């Protein structure tokens, strides 16, 4: 009889990997994008089983609420409805299969051959410690990250706007 934690892990892992499989193999880009929702939810659940509660909330807020909505907007704005059947074509199966199997072999060998310490630490809320780390040890990267976000926001606005010709430019 597996324990409750094992059942939760298996369910979350299968949700994550099943949705990721749909992302990788679906012929319809809309299905791929919506399946990404399942992957993000599964990863958030796995964060909870790893006692990273703040990260789980951030994952849902930022990825599901922000990034996924942005990607859905891009899909809707760039795919024509009439060719929705072939909206996500594929090519180059052979090379991709070869590279992915080599990478998986190497990763699996490293993960199983290395003697990792296997004892799990007791679960605890980590949000307070995370906040202290951000405003203490990691203060400079934290501020740099906010500058990066500002630059990305301005860059996205500049890149995505239409070039509007004003009246005095047309003459």
């Amino acid at each position, binding site marked *: 009889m597996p324990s409750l934690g094992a059942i939760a892990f298996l369910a979350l892992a299968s949700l994550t990997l099943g949705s990721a499989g749909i992302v990788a193999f679906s012929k319809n880009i809309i299905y791929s994008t919506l399946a990404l929702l399942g992957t993000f939810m599964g990863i958030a659940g796995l964060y909870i089983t790893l006692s990273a509660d703040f990260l789980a909330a951030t994952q849902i807020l930022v990825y599901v609420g922000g990034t996924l909505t942005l990607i859905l907007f891009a899909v809707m704005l760039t795919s024509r409805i009439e060719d929705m059947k072939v909206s996500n074509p594929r090519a180059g199966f052979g090379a991709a299969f070869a590279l992915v199997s080599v990478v998986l072999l190497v990763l699996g060998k490293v993960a199983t051959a290395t003697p990792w310490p296997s004892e799990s630490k007791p679960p605890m809320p980590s949000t307070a410690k995370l906040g202290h780390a951000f405003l203490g040890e990691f203060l400079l990267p934290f501020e740099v990250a906010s500058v990066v976000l500002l630059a990305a926001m301005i860059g*996205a606005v500049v890149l995505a706007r239409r070039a509007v010709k004003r009246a005095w430019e047309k003459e």
Partner: protein
Amino acid sequence: MQIGLVHYLSVAAVLFGLGLFTVMTRKNAVGILLGVELILNAAALNFVAFEHFVAGGVSGQVFTVFIIVLAASEAAIALAIVLQVYRSYRSIMADRLTSLRN
């Protein structure tokens, strides 16, 4: 059945493999972006798993927060570029963007 580090590592490895497969086989630029998101999530899961089982502290979670921040800004910039490409070519299939070839 005791869930240990190896299980999380294998989930992240398979997730990374699926992301790599998506990036290599998709022609749709947004599809390629979905693969990049999968790869970033796999890396973040590895960070949190190592922090929980090996390192202790909160450094792994700090890294994961930075990964999320960078993924959000990357998605915003990439989708703005995709919109502009669609305006110029009426298509975002990566194999048709060949104006620099000759």
